[in-house]
């Protein structure tokens, strides 16, 4: 899952990002690769639980990768769910569940405990169904440039199998490189041969309209 990383299925992947290096492209990449790799549309599902109703953007970016999301939605292969209205439970194997913009829930006043309970319940459901769960969490970096580890992040980090960080370059903005991606193992995960990418050997990416280009 998610080239060039050789992540297995059925994991809980926590993807953290910052405002100067948003990880939208990573979520799009995961979902589109999952949909493209489907052997049969009836079995494979991708469910996106988002707090921000940005379905039009998903459709526009998918079109650039030659995926018609409307068609996939009608066949049931792609499901876009607004978290604030209701939540959907995956009940089929080979499902990829993406949870986006959880931090928005916290910043707009929802109690951290409720969000944590929701994530735990979702993680347990996905684990029972052997589905892959991908959660995106924003990390704040005020002027000190050290990321603030909020309670929600700490909870998610404890639960995750792998932790992927999408970071800006430490040397500042560049025209050739948009940012860097690192992959760490979760605190409770046994090392299973997945190649990790610490910050010292992070992969650089450049954003283009079609996605993240050329891992430099």
């Amino acid at each position, binding site marked *: 899952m998610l080239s060039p990383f050789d992540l297995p299925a059925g994991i809980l992947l926590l993807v953290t990002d910052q405002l100067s290096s948003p990880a939208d492209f990573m979520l*799009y990449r995961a979902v589109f690769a999952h949909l493209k790799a489907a052997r049969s549309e009836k079995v494979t599902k991708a469910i996106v639980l988002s707090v921000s109703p940005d379905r039009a953007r998903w459709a526009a970016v998918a079109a650039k990768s030659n995926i018609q999301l409307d068609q996939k939605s009608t066949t049931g292969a792609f499901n876009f769910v607004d978290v604030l209205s209701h939540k959907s439970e995956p009940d089929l194997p080979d499902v990829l569940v993406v949870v986006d913009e959880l931090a928005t829930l916290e910043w707009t006043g929802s109690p951290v405990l409720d969000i944590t309970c929701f994530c735990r319940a979702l993680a347990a459901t996905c684990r029972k169904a052997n589905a892959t769960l991908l959660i995106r969490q924003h990390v*704040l970096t005020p002027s000190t440039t050290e990321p603030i580890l909020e309670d929600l992040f700490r909870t998610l980090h404890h639960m995750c199998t792998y932790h992927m960080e999408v970071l800006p370059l430490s040397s500042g903005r560049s025209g050739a490189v948009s940012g860097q991606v690192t992959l760490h193992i979760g605190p409770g995960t046994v090392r299973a041969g997945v190649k990790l990418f610490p910050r010292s050997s992070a992969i650089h990416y450049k*954003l283009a309209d079609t996605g993240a280009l050329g891992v430099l």
Partner: protein
Amino acid sequence: MSFKRKTTRQTTTTPLVSTGIHSLDDILGGGIPLSCSLVLTAPDPHSEYDQLVLKYFLAQGLASNQRICVVGSDTENWTAQCMWLPPNSARQIADTVDEDTETQSDEKIKIAWRYEQMKPFQTTVGTSSSTGATADPCCTFDLTTRIPPSVIADAVKAQDLLFLSIDGSKDNLSTTSVLKRLEEVLANGKTQTPLRVCIPDLGSPSWGDLKAHNLLHFLHCLRALLRRYPHACACVSLATEWSADHVATGWYQKLGWMSDGAITLDAFSGNPALAAAFPGLHGLLRIHTLPAPTTLVPASDRFSTLRGTGTGAGSGENNLGFKCTRKRLVFETVHLDVEGGVGERRTTAPPSAVDVQPSIASKKIVAAVVEVELEGTPSPEPVAAPVKKSRKRVGFQSDRPEVYDF
């Protein structure tokens, strides 16, 4: 440094609306895309540049016969203070020959012959750079001209200009009721004409007692509303007390995540040192996020001339600032002065050339004498002058070129 002028063209299908300021349109990648929200913050309590930008936004909407909804308290008086087109009503091209050149010296400066044909150094974009990619071409407004009351009256009569006041009760937050009424306006209006939502001074005392999460929730819901009704766009300016970064942890970043575009106009009014460091500017512009409604990369990255991010690999981004002249507000690139920049090369003096000679004959400067004494050891001779390094001897001997002595 002069940059190539690019045509600002949006390849996506999202239509754009002009902000009324040519240089700000360029920074945004052509204008504000419909269905997007732009949040402006201005932490300086002595000035209101963010509200000035909002007035341009409103005036542009009126000049383009678009629909506008102004949300706030005392909105009629606020609208009456907006700027308008110059009195002769000809859309003058704002070229470089304006009040900026009045400050230059009248004497002809001697320029080397090879540079005489070059154009003057440009720090901003002119009116000709904006193309027809926007739904409305950007007008050139004059700050010395007030909007005629007849224009406002006609727009109100035609229901193209709506005023939404703030009302909140003990049980109902002002932000909640505003969102509800805004949705009614968006749902009932004509969808063929772009609608501009203009919210000056969000979070001011007239909005009641709001917390940080109330404001973030409002911005989040506003964005969701604009996505549902994509013929509209919004420009919001936060009240001064909500514009500083220390309001909450990572406040600017939270604003950036909650809106499509977020920029800060950091004026120098309260900081004389910065004003002295950048004499031609009134403040610096900080960009937190830019609109990208249907693409991964904001259009501004590719098309903005001022930001300079599209000019080949390896190029960084220009620093941006703004200044308010008598007639207009301009955003431009920031350049260091000659003395402080890389134009002046300074090399460190070699160690052997430390000058201890008195510069003025009448004064006698004596080099400091350092005496180091250790117990039990004879004191070393005081060093009166720095030790001169022995000259490097080259191993090459001119009479025997084949021999090298290393």
